[in-house]
């Protein structure tokens, strides 16, 4: 194993605080430690490497995986049971139903494993998921040391501050630690650290420098940046491999990679195209033109009446009910907008979002915007339902079907305009906001 400083960079102060808290192996440590910080601030990584390099008895559990407390508790116990690998014990599965059992079994297992004379660390990663489990779980973990009367420390890793965890009944307060975001200098250092063996560290560091120059303004996530670095490095090396430039031709290399990275920002970074497609693009050196991003496929083909139902739903969602007469009655006379506009409606309905409307209003609007006569057939009703399954409409408060269901239209103006265009319907003329 490398010494800790060589693998964990830029976290010296946090590591030394933790080391101080842990103390000697047999010392009791703080019962619970709460570590928080943004994603990719190295919480998991620091904990893992710390535990491994100092060879402390520990278990690390990711709480996302444990959707019931039972799985969580069994996971901890079974991992503890395998601390010292001995064949037969590992295969036997420990079942645990409640926290009571957990406390009892925990004592037994630590004794069996011969670690009851030193601090055992339980690391609960993504601890925010604990809040959705049974209410007693968090307080119990916080004072596990007291409950088991053993030398144990529970470490919580979370992206959310402690205040959002604290139950209103009160509980044991953990030791709280913050992992601040990495600065650009830190990022540069950490990213440059894992350079490919074929190239020199300086060459790679120069590349990271360019990468950060492009991406730092939009993305500070270490994991994303590393991903991008790995994806685009081969393009950076291209001139060197081809013999067109040498490793120290920074200007030339920069001119080669910069537009490429800018393009990446609009495509792979947004997951418009996938990383494998991006790599293929680089290899084939084809133009982006042929490959369309995900959002280029926005078009949805719908049956004729479904289009009108969607348009009607959109109108019902964004027009005030009072105005239906003006839009859909053939001889509504001349009603100026100002005369029937109420004060609070001056704000755009589009800013307020879609409003729910009853089924009958939808049908009434539908009948008046379709030129041919539509019978209210079973097919029309099932089309409304399928629009709901397609998430283009949503059902609001569907507790009572007989009471007249209410719907909301969830599509955007652009989407509905595209739909309306295909049936030669000028939707803007019918929208109150655009009068």
């Amino acid at each position, binding site marked *: 194993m490398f010494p800790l400083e060589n693998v964990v960079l830029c976290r010296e102060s946090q590591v030394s605080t933790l080391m101080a808290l842990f103390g000697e192996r047999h010392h009791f440590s703080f019962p619970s430690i709460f570590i928080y910080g943004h994603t990719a601030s190295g919480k998991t990584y620091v904990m893992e490497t710390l535990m491994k390099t100092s060879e402390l008895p520990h278990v690390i559990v*990711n709480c*996302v*995986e*444990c*959707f*019931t407390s*039972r*799985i969580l508790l*069994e*996971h901890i116990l079974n991992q503890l049971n395998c601390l010292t690998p001995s064949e037969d014990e590992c295969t036997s*599965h420990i*079942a645990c139903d409640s926290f009571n059992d957990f406390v009892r079994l925990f004592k037994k297992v630590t004794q069996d494993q011969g670690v009851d004379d030193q601090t055992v660390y339980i690391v609960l990663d993504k601890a925010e998921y604990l809040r959705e489990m049974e209410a007693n779980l968090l307080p119990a973990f916080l004072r596990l040391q007291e409950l088991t009367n053993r030398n144990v420390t529970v470490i919580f890793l979370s992206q959310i501050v402690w205040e959002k965890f604290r139950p209103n009944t009160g509980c044991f307060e953990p030791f709280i630690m913050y992992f601040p975001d990495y600065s650009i200098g830190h990022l540069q250092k950490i990213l440059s650290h*894992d350079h*490919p*063996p074929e190239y020199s560290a300086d060459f790679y560091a120069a590349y990271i420098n360019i990468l950060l120059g492009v991406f730092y303004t939009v993305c500070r996530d270490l*994991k*994303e940046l*590393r*991903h991008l*670095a*790995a*994806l685009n*490095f*081969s393009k950076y090396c291209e001139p060197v491999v081809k013999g067109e430039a040498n490793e120290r031709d920074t200007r030339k290399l920069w001119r080669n990679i910069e537009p490429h990275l800018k393009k990446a920002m609009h495509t792979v970074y947004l*997951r418009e195209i*996938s*990383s*494998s*497609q991006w790599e293929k693009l680089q290899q084939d050196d084809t133009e982006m033109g042929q490959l369309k991003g*995900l*959002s280029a*496929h*926005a*078009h*949805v*083909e*719908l*049956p*004729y*009446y*479904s289009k009108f139902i969607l348009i009607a739903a959109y109108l019902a969602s964004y027009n005030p009910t009072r105005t239906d007469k003006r839009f859909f009655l053939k001889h509504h006379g001349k009603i100026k907008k100002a005369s029937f506009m109420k004060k609070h409606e001056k704000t755009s309905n589009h800013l307020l979002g879609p409003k729910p409307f009853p089924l*009958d209003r939808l049908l*009434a609007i539908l009948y008046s915007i379709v030129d041919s006569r539509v*019978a*209210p*057939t*079973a*097919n*029309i*009703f*099932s*089309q409304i339902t*399928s629009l709901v*399954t*397609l*998430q*283009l409409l949503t059902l609001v408060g569907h507790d009572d079907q*007989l*009471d*007249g269901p209410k719907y909301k239209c969830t599509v955007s103006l652009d989407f509905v305009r595209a739909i309306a265009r295909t049936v030669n319907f000028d939707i803007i003329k019918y929208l109150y906001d655009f009068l």
Partner: protein
Amino acid sequence: MATSSVSKGCFVFKPDFKRKKVSFPIADYFNEGESLSEDSKLRFDTCQLLWQQMKSEAEELQEELNKNLFDSLIEFLEKSHLEFRKKSTKWNYQIKCREIPTAALVLGVNVTDHDLTFKGLTEMLRDTVTPYVVSLQAKECPDVKHILQKLASQLMGCCIDMESTEEEYVQSSQRKMHYSMAFLSTWYKSVTQKTSSESVKKKITSFSHWKESPPIVIILKDIESFSTKVLQDFIIISSQYLHELPIVLVFGIATSPIIIHRLLPQAVSSLCIELLQSLSCKEHLAKLLDKLLLTTRFPFKLNEKALQVLTNIFLYHDFSVQNFIKGLQLAILEHFYSQPLSILCCDLPEAKKRIHSLSEDQCESIRRLPSFMRYVEKQTPEKQVASLTDERFLKEETLRFLEDLHSYHENFFLVLKCLHAFTSSLPKYPLGRQIRELYCACLEKNIWESQEYEPALQLLRMLAKDELMAILQKCLEVCKSPPGKQFGGTVEKLQEFLVQFQKLEETESNEEENGSGSQQKGLQKTDLYHLQKSLLEMKELRSSNKKQTKFEVQRDRVVDFIDNLVRKYLSPPDTQTLYEVVYFTGAHILREHLNAAPRIALHTALNNPYHYLKNQALKSEDDSIPNVAPDICIAYKLHLECSRLINLVDWSEAFATVVTAAEETDPNSTASEEIKEIIHARFIRAVSELELLGFIKPTKQKTDHVARLTWGGC
């Protein structure tokens, strides 16, 4: 039912399944009062046979269309998890985020058809790539727990299929139904180790590199319906186990791939998405029509109205090819059920045999066919007598007509396809863009008498040479495709035209500047107004300088030729004698069954009970309510006259008045008290029935009032 128990209590009697099994053979339904049972059985069998053939044809087509999609999916699977399989140590791989390979299948909004695709997909994957295919539906997955449970049970299930020895292992861990990803990962390890240490005896041969670690393909059938949280958590968990489990996700998308971004704003970064698009359902329908209806392979045909009903349901309502096929099935069934002569709706050799054994009744029904009567009227008196009396003569004629009908169809479809080749390239598609539109038009009436035909021909007379030649080439292919059939020298004629155009091309360079070169530019696809204007101009031009180029002369001849073909062969089917035998004409039946209108039916039932009950007493000329009508009808009719809120007291009084109108009883007698109470009870029942049907509901706005939930007549 008796029990042997001496004590009182509730006893459960399970239904006796044996008794229920007595079922009627479906063929019996074909047995209508008058017709012979022998005949109806034959008709039913013919129907079944025909349907089986058409169905397998449709299924074949479906498979063929799926093949493209499936092939690209397999290709995608092959690429994915390359590193996993090679246990790659490349720098690049170590450092990159682990992304789950994800295929986004865009399948179109006809959700009902997706099941078939997924079924085919699952089978194909099981056969060729991996035994571990799991399909999940949103409604089975309200949370991560259920997803993993489904996942585990389906995975273990397919593992049991493979090896029965696995069973103990599964059982020991299955007693507690708490699966976690960790559990699955150990399971996967043990299974793959076992199979690779033993000799792999699975039939998966084409992908040898998968043998050691076959991917786990998880199909999420309806991605739109999944909840963000569940899916996001599941993806986070899966991506954490990616180095132990080669998971591949398949998303079934009905709308557009953008939904992925909307649904998974964060987790999308752990996916490596590839888009795969299936054929659009409209194209699928076009292919289906081509295979099932625009062919002489199957004798059965739809008339214009019936075809229109089916395609309208497809285009206006559901986009579902499966529903279209179901509708077609209904049409076939209905045709064979209601048309006694459908017995002759089979292939020619078989029909020949059947004509011989036609019974007297059947001959009589041939004579009664409108198309046959029309034919007889035009004959000489001797022939008329013979057709109407001589059975043998009639049979001979019938055979001749059927043969004629067959060759009529053969020519019809060829010419139809040729005409479509011509008109589908015209701007604005005057005769329809899809062949089905043209087909419908031809079924309806003489196409050359339609308004759009003449202008279309004029547009054809302005085609540029390369366009014209491409079209001719297409027509040639169409006409050549049925091998061995001679089609009135059309093929030769077409070939001749082509050769002449080619010759023209060679000589053209010599006589380039021959005046009206402008006409050869072809038509720009602009708006109709400009088209008509340029048409006029060209006409003038033509009349002013009479001299046409050789190309123009030739072009006119081609158009005249096609015009002749159309007039000769594309007459609508109802001009053919005996067309009733193969054409289904019950469009209204299809509409009634496939496009039901529950609201209207309900309104009719309540407003005009005679319509369904057929009770003479209920017949009413004016809109009045007979007092013998069911109570709910009376209450319904009265409520139609009310506004949004209905006063219960008024309503009740009106109800009582109507009910007692005819019964001229003395209102002051003691018996009437009792009657009043009964009437009141009847009223309450009627009102609550209306509430149950959703016409009214209680309201808090006003005491003693109910609110109407419907407006207008229906």
